[in-house]
């Protein structure tokens, strides 16, 4: 024990130095945790919540770009898919958005409404590759508000569309072919379902995201992709729409999908297919890769166009959009990367690397995309006769509608607590109010879906790929 002779026997009070000594001891170790950087390059951040495969593909593009520009460092911000949306919202709401943002169509509409996206119109006006994008890609941009009244806020990075995946052996056993119509498809599901052997026809998505699979069916049955009539009344509970939802609900009620599927989201769904529980599933092109990774090949997997409904054949297209944040720290540097990345050459390189559909016309002629498992997807995405699925993403309530309300109501229906009619009544009621609020604030001119008859692809008619 140390003695302080000069202080006498009275206990000394704590001095500031003592406090500092104790406190700094703990924090001293912390200084080893520096953050990297310091090579003089300016940094551009790119937010990418698209999942491992596509993040890697985008990462390779980033590497390539940095090889060209030694004054810039492009940093990818990979986020877990599950939390990608929440993280991006936090970054925006917290005032520290990434410079370049990758977003789905629905997110894009949200971020636009938040004022988080930079207007690219002046740059776009003089950009040499303006005409490179396909009509489908630009249409999706319009319905996600990435392009609005001729002003450009984002451009299509990749197109996603749905096709039907089948287990080839199950079909072969029964001598079946992929179904061309919804009636035929229903019959097919009944034939391949064999509950004694734990085989089910359809991997139904009963939880989050289920909306994206049953809404196109409602469009097929009603023949329209409109949500509101001329007086802004929601029409998604019309008898024809109810018929469509009944069709989807019956698949579950009649035991053609596993009981568990009422709570299946993205992951369980795909797993249900490749693990051999379900005979078919409708999914994005990137799922082809997932299936191949899990050991499927030409002898076990077929991809085919979606079956046609009674009143329409619907292409459920969606999109990943690249845009620049309005809070970008170095807008010019962000634009430099953006401009390079959105050139047809780089977009095609990325699409091939990630095995996704290209958004530029040049890609339509590229034999890579017109063959093998990707072909039906390309057909779906480019055939002018398909009705484009659509949803009113301009409504601020759409996020809550799709992510919370729809999930809740559709699960109530699957669990037998309410009928399809009641389900759609409740949903329509919510949208009626949302639309009325929108009209009160912004006037009666609301965005409308693309006309079904509009020519969608001029350069590459279906069947010539």
């Amino acid at each position, binding site marked *: *024990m*140390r*003695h*302080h*002779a000069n*202080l*006498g*026997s009275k*206990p*000394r*009070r*704590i*001095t500031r130095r*003592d406090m500092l000594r*104790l*406190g700094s*001891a*703990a*924090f001293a*170790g*912390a200084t*080893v*945790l520096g*953050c*990297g950087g310091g090579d003089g390059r300016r940094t551009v*951040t790119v937010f990418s919540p*698209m*999942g*491992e495969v596509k993040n890697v593909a985008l990462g390779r593009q980033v590497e390539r770009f940095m090889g060209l520009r030694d004054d810039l460092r492009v*940093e*990818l*911000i*990979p*986020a*877990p*898919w*599950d*939390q990608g949306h*929440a*993280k991006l919202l*936090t*970054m925006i*709401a*917290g*005032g*520290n958005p*990434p410079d370049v943002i990758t977003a789905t169509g629905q997110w894009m509409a949200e971020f636009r409404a938040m004022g988080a996206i930079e207007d690219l119109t002046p740059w776009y006006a003089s950009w040499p590759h303006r005409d490179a994008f396909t009509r489908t890609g630009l249409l999706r941009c319009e319905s996600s508000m990435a392009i609005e009244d001729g002003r450009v806020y984002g451009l299509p990075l990749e197109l996603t569309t749905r096709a039907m995946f089948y287990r080839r052996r199950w079909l072969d056993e029964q001598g079946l072919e992929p179904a061309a119509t919804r009636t035929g498809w229903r019959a097919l599901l009944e034939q391949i379902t064999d509950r004694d052997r*734990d085989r089910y026809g359809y991997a139904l998505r009963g939880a989050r995201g289920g909306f994206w699979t049953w809404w196109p069916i409602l469009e097929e049955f009603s023949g329209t992709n409109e949500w509101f009539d001329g007086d802004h009344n929601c029409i998604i509970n019309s008898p024809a729409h109810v018929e469509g939802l009944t069709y989807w609900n019956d698949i579950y009620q009649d035991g053609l999908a596993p009981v568990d599927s009422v709570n299946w989201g*993205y*992951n369980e*769904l*795909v*797993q249900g297919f490749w*693990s*051999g529980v379900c005979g078919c599933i409708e*999914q994005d092109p*990137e799922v082809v890769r*997932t299936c191949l*990774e899990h*050991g499927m090949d030409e002898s076990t997997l077929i991809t085919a166009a979606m079956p046609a409904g009674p009143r329409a054949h619907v292409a459920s297209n969606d999109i990943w959009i690249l845009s620049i944040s309005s809070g970008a720290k170095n807008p010019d540097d962000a634009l430099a990367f953006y401009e390079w990345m959105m050139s047809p050459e780089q977009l095609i390189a990325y699409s091939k690397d990630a095995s996704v559909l290209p958004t530029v016309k040049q890609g339509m002629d590229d034999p890579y995309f017109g063959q093998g498992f990707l072909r039906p997807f390309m057909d779906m995405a480019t055939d002018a006769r398909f009705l484009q699925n659509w949803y009113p993403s301009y409504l601020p309530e759409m996020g809550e509608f799709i992510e919370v309300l729809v999930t809740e109501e559709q699960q109530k229906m699957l669990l037998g607590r309410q009928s399809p009619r009641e389900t759609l009544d409740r949903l329509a009621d919510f949208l009626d109010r949302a639309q009325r609020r929108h009209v009160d604030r912004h006037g009666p001119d609301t965005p409308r879906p693309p006309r079904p008859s509009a020519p969608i692809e001029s350069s590459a008619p279906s069947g010539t790929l």
Partner: protein
Amino acid sequence: MIRTHPLRRLLQVTGLCAFFLFAVFPVYWMVVTSITPEKDLFVWPLKYFPSAPTLEHYAAAFLRTDIPRFFTNSIMVASLASACTLTVSVMGGYALARYRFRGRKVTLLMFLATQMMPVVVLIVPLFIIFRMLGLLNTLYSLMIVYTVLNIPFCTLMMQGFFAGVPSELEEAAMVDGCNRMGAILRVAVPLTRPGLIATFLFAFIGAWNELLFAVMFLNSESTFTLPVGLYNFISKYDIHWGRMMAGATLALLPALAVFAFVQRYMVRGLALGAVKG
């Protein structure tokens, strides 16, 4: 001690075995899944042990992600955060145990109240604070958050430990000319060493496992902690069960090792604190 009745002994053994199985079977299944080839995971009925065990999932975890880096980051954050927590809690716990002062009760209630705040609503405000401090995308932000989140409970724990050590020893030391800080560091702290270990462990495990703030505050892969790295194994369409479980096993190992070493101290330490409650 009186000899245990055989029937009672039997009951005890059965009970202990039951607890053992309950605790172990999910972990067992995790490890088995991590060494089962992908195609054997989805067969029915299940195989309780893989016929051809494989390390492919571990290899994939190492090849596809920077797991060693995540490990290092996690260890740094967790150990430094728990060191800070411990320092602050020792000081606070000592004050609460040794002094009767105005506001003591309020302090205790305030500590309790912090536990009631839902972290979800704090994410954005904290994000803004760290933005202003310029600490986003650094491990500092996590260290601070984990320290702060653990302080209230750890301070309460330390208070219990100090209350269990008679204050006469410190007084004697101070009579010998030691100042108060010296008395704390030289007398009280060594006496509560098992308690310190318990508190450290508590803070360490909390920091080691935290996910939500880490996902929100970290951007670059080079700063990721282990839970964030593992979370990225879930992509939109696919959970790589085997790889995920391999990562989970790796994440659990250090925590288990620490546990095996210190749990004796921990119980002894907590017991010290429990004397006075």
